[in-house]
């Protein structure tokens, strides 16, 4: 039985591991360290931890200064605050010079839950993807979260946005998994529909594939865990096999995974239908995570239904 974990919890543990492996790793937080789980790093390496206080812009610019001076800073807050609230700072002080700062956006998406629209980040992927040099990483499970955190500290360079969640997901990937930037993975082969998902949506996509298989529909499932740089090859591969592509993300369909896939398909002149699942140009609201996912069709059943409808509607 796979272990169910919230990616933010795994991240908190992996950060301590990264700090142990690399003395240049430092962590900044903006008064959310128990929630972002950087509290573990704070306990392990107090001399390399800075709680800036409730000042995300200051935190991000401070992280940039640290990166310019030999440290590898991980700056932490809720996903919406560390992206939207500090966009100008990220753009000019981190991305423009290409500094190696990791922005970890915690509690991303609808599954942030009861706090409502102000705290539910549904635009962060779009915002980060638009910035030159920024790399956008969205782990599907705990195993990938750890792999990405360690890679961000030790293997990658330049600006990185790491999107984390507070919704339990089962471990999908093999424990031996190693993260490679820009390399997506086919988790399940199929020929009728390609389900391209990221983050929390990878597991329901796999569940949907199971359901559809029982109905005679063979779904190919892709874990698109790097939104930027995007793995074009794997999309082309899917287009070569399937006559329908469905993207699923816990994010707006504007500017996120669905948009990124659409751009590739349009540029390739693919005569394949695309259905984008996500929030449709609306804000979130207070409710439980499961209620919100169901409302926006971001469940195994929601994905399955979208596939059935699209295949049925096809001439």
């Amino acid at each position, binding site marked *: 039985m796979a272990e169910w974990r919230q990616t933010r919890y795994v991240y908190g543990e992996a950060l301590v591991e990264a700090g142990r492996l690399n003395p240049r790793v*430092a962590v900044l937080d903006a008064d959310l360290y128990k929630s972002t789980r950087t509290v573990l790093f704070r306990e392990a390496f107090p*001399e*390399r931890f*800075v709680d*800036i*206080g409730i*000042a995300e*812009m*200051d935190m*991000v*610019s*401070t*992280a*940039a*200064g*640290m*990166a*310019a*001076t*030999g*440290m590898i*800073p991980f700056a932490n807050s809720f996903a919406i605050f560390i992206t939207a609230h500090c966009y*100008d*700072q990220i753009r*000019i*002080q981190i991305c*423009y*010079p*290409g500094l190696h700062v990791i922005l970890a956006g915690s509690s991303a998406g609808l599954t942030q839950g009861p706090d409502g629209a102000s705290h539910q980040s549904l635009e962060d992927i779009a915002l980060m993807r638009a910035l030159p040099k920024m790399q956008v990483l969205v782990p599907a499970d705990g195993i990938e979260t750890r792999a990405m955190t360690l890679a961000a500290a030790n293997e990658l360079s330049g600006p990185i946005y790491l999107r984390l969640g507070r919704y339990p997901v089962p471990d999908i990937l093999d424990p031996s998994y190693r993260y490679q930037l820009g390399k997506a993975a086919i988790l399940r082969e199929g020929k009728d529909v390609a389900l391209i998902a990221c983050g929390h949506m990878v597991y329901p996509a796999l569940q949907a594939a199971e359901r559809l298989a029982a109905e005679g529909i063979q779904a190919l499932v892709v874990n698109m865990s790097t939104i930027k740089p995007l793995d074009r090859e794997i999309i082309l591969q899917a287009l070569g096999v399937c006559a329908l592509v469905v993207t699923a993300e816990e994010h707006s369909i504007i500017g996120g995974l669905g948009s990124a896939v659409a751009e590739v398909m349009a540029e390739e002149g693919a005569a394949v239908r695309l259905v984008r699942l996500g929030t449709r140009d609306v804000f979130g609201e207070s409710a439980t995570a499961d209620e919100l996912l169901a409302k926006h069709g971001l469940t195994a059943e929601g994905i399955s239904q979208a596939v059935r409808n699209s295949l049925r509607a096809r001439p």
Partner: protein
Amino acid sequence: MRIENVKALQRLAWELRLDIVRMMGPNKAHHFGGSLSAADLVTAIYFHALRYDPQNPRWPERDRFVMSKGHCVPAQYAALARLGVFPREELPTLKTLGSRLQGHPAAHLLPGIEACTGSLGQGLSFANGIALAGRMQGLAFRVYCLLGDGETQEGQVWEAARTTVRQCLTNVIGVIDCNGLKAMDTSYCGAEIPALAEKWRAFGWRVREIDGHDMAQICAALDWAIEEHPQPAMIIARTVKGKGVPFIENEPDYHNAALTQEQIDRAIHALQMQMAHMEEA
């Protein structure tokens, strides 16, 4: 660099002003006003205060200078070129296609530039980050940050002001080029001007107010700022926007403006006259 001779520093400051006006040249909008008001401060920081090896601008233990009011980077370009960090012949490429001398500082393009700024209000936070990283690595250097008085209207400046104190970053030294003007208007109404020092004191900084065109006062303040003290130091330097070019001085319209060739010639002449006057004094 460590020049103690006040007259030598004054001479350098006038030379920097000439470099600024010449690199900007005619018929193109440039930030004349703020670059000229900051010239004495930038001169004193680079040639009196900074522990810096122009041959090795990435020396890990160097003192850093962060130009938070990034639009005044021509003053910094002039100083770096005078130090020999890059060739002076490159100065006239300012803001032309392919130049390393961007309209606002680009740290990844030009050695000697420490931070990308230009969006106001962010430099002091960056300076704090440099200081924190230095502490974490056991490096003993100082970080100088030059802000504009108008820039302190940005809220992030006060986030950073708090962080400097809260993190005990006493090796961060702030300097405000208090020329009293912004892009459109005066920085503060009369009632606010004295409060600037009080604001910094209230945030836990020690403050010294000086005449930002009196080189002896500037050097004395920079020496005061590195004295052992539990509080970080902020130097509030009263300056004249456009200092040295009479028809630009205190004219908000020359915050970012194009001069004609005739005006450039007049500006250079005015600067040369004042330089000669300084030499005679």
